[in-house]
């Protein structure tokens, strides 16, 4: 790809938001006229610097994630790219048709029918009436609102409204798509369809910028990630790398805060950090290089039958010998509920040290989990809980079983009847 394939160019962009003080909130045109209209009358009392000297290019066809804490300037950056606000300094260039999904269903009116809202939302996204008519059926099908087209939007469930909002935007066929945290709403099925649609966009060579707090989504969907912190671009690189650095920074910040709050309450040594609560942490003294789930035959497996034996493995390596080390695994549902967690200390099989490469194996004779998707955390940490490498959601696997079971536990079991139950046998 050459220079001509740049879809987005942000060059030295600084954005100041003017804050008008009391003088201006009650400030009046009358007083402005009396004191003389001019720049002075329209000047701000103070300014908030939302972005400071941010520069980056995005090539056409790239999917880029933007991460960072709240208030770091992510949304401002998208608004600048969308042309909703202008940079105070620097230049923003976007090539091609742009669609901004800063809020699903922006512009929806509750009193108007779904049909009417599709038309207006489409026009707001820059479609012509003809384009809307052509894509109408596809939008309705994607949103799954066939029976409700002529009902006012206020009668829709929130899920339906959200689906409709995304369906319209997804069918606006942009060259550049800006998405701000909209996938956080809606159920899982919907989130999957959105991701599928993103995949389609990617294959079609569209440029996508996603602001998200879902780091899993960023590493999974984006090759590249930008990390904003207090209005500055602190990292720009492959998403796995950027996200890892960001997680490290968040963990640092969290442990600093935890340490501060603990030392305020008591002066005791910090107790063992509960597994599964921290996001990825790591000093890097030991590295969890690989994590695997294996079936009863010892082959790596993407799916395990419920009740069958399973084996969890991690490859760990330490550059320098470590005498203080604990290995742990946790299994959680996709929604994040931990269903199992144990380590070599809690299970009473302490490791004495790690001098180089090693493989840690946890055998489970019967994986009594209900069918569903699960994620595996793998960690190597010190006995006091200080992590060397904590890989959250390192791997996902499915558990299968005939029939349906509620919950996460699928224990071996037997029913029997006593009394006046008519049974088959």
């Amino acid at each position, binding site marked *: 790809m050459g220079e001509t394939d740049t879809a987005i160019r942000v060059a030295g962009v600084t954005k100041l*938001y*003017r804050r*008008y003080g009391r003088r*201006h*909130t*009650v*400030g*009046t*045109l*009358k007083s*402005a006229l009396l004191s003389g209209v001019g720049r002075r009358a*329209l000047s701000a009392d103070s300014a908030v610097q939302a972005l400071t000297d941010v520069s980056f290019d995005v090539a056409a066809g790239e999917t880029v994630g933007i991460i960072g804490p709240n208030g770091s300037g992510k949304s401002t950056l998208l*608004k600048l790219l*969308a*042309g*909703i*606000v*202008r940079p105070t300094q620097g230049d923003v260039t976007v090539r091609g048709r*742009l669609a*901004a999904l*800063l*809020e699903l269903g*922006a*512009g929806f*009116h509750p*009193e*108007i029918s779904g049909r*009417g809202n599709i*038309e*207006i939302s489409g*026009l*707001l*996204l*820059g479609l*012509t*009436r003809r384009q809307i008519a052509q894509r109408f059926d596809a939008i309705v099908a994607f949103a799954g609102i066939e029976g409700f087209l002529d009902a*006012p939007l206020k009668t829709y469930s929130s899920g339906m409204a959200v689906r409709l909002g995304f369906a319209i935007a997804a069918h606006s066929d942009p060259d550049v798509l800006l998405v701000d945290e909209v996938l956080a709403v809606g159920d899982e099925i919907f989130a999957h369809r959105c991701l599928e649609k993103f995949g389609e966009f990617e294959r079609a060579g569209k440029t996508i910028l996603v602001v998200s707090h879902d780091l899993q989504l960023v590493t999974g969907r984006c090759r590249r990630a930008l990390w904003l912190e207090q209005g500055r671009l602190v990292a720009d690189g492959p998403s796995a790398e950027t996200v890892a650095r960001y997680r490290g920074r968040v963990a640092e910040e969290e442990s600093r805060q935890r340490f501060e709050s603990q030392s305020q309450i008591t002066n005791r040594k910090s107790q063992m950090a509960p597994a599964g609560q921290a996001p990825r942490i790591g000093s890097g003294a030991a590295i969890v290089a690989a994590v695997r789930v294996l079936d009863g035959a010892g082959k790596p497996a993407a799916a395990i039958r419920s009740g069958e034996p399973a084996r969890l493995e991690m490859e760990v390596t330490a550059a320098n010998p470590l005498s203080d080390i604990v290995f742990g695994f946790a299994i959680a549902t996709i929604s994040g509920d931990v269903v199992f967690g144990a380590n070599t200390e809690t299970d009473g099989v302490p490791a004495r040290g790690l001098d180089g490469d090693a493989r840690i194996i946890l055998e489970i004779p019967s994986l009594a989990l209900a069918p569903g998707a699960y994620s595996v955390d793998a960690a190597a940490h010190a006995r006091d809980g200080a992590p060397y490498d904590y890989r959250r959601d390192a791997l996902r696997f499915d558990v299968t079983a005939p029939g349906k079971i509620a919950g996460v536990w699928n224990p071996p079991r037997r029913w029997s009847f006593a009394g006046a139950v008519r049974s088959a046998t």
Partner: protein
Amino acid sequence: MRPLLRTWRQRALIVALTRRELAARYRGGVLGYFWSLVNPLLLLAVYATVFRLVFQPRADVRPYALFLFAGVLAWGFVSGALLDAAETFRANGPLLRKTTVAPEVFPAVAVGARLSHLVLALPVLAGAIVYAAATGSVRPGAPAIAFAAVLFLLTLTVFGLALAISSLAVHFGDVRDLVANFLTLAFFLTPILYPVASIPQRFRAWMRVNPFATFFEAIQDSAFFFRPIAPREWAWMAGTAAVCLAVGAWIFERLRDSIAEEA
């Protein structure tokens, strides 16, 4: 002139939002769009009663109810559109902040919605003229057609003012109050309640300072007196429309960048 160009390009959205505005207002009402007819009909009935039984208007403006009706309808459009324009960016703040919509759309919709109300009430005006003609109190003629052209130029003027008012209102809290006060004053300084003929000769030139005066004189000429509008008046109205559009667009363009931030 860029705001005017953008407005033109967004005309499909403006029409759709205007229709939505009307539909949302009438949705759920038993009479629906008939409210647009009922309001002016009631107004006309009140005028007809009060000015027949209570006040005795001048001889040259009888039937006074009809004389008043065209002017009051048009004034309702002007004042409604300008007051709506003063609030439109605050009312549509979420859209401005969350979509890439051109802000010009909103003052245009404010004007479009009020214009639609006026146009929906025109059958009542036409009916009143036909009734008055049948009873022999007015003699309608060809100049009535000019009413449409006057309304067109008036709409352009109002849109120019709406551009200025809407963008200024984002920065100054009192713009709506100022507009409301000016409109009250202008209502009495504009030939709506009285014909131009009743203004003393030495004040006639001053009347032209009010940009609306010529429009409402032309409305009376076309919809009540049924006499042709002088070319000089046409030129004056066209000039007023051009100046208002140019000034409105200039002010709007200067304040445009801050609208999404401040609204």
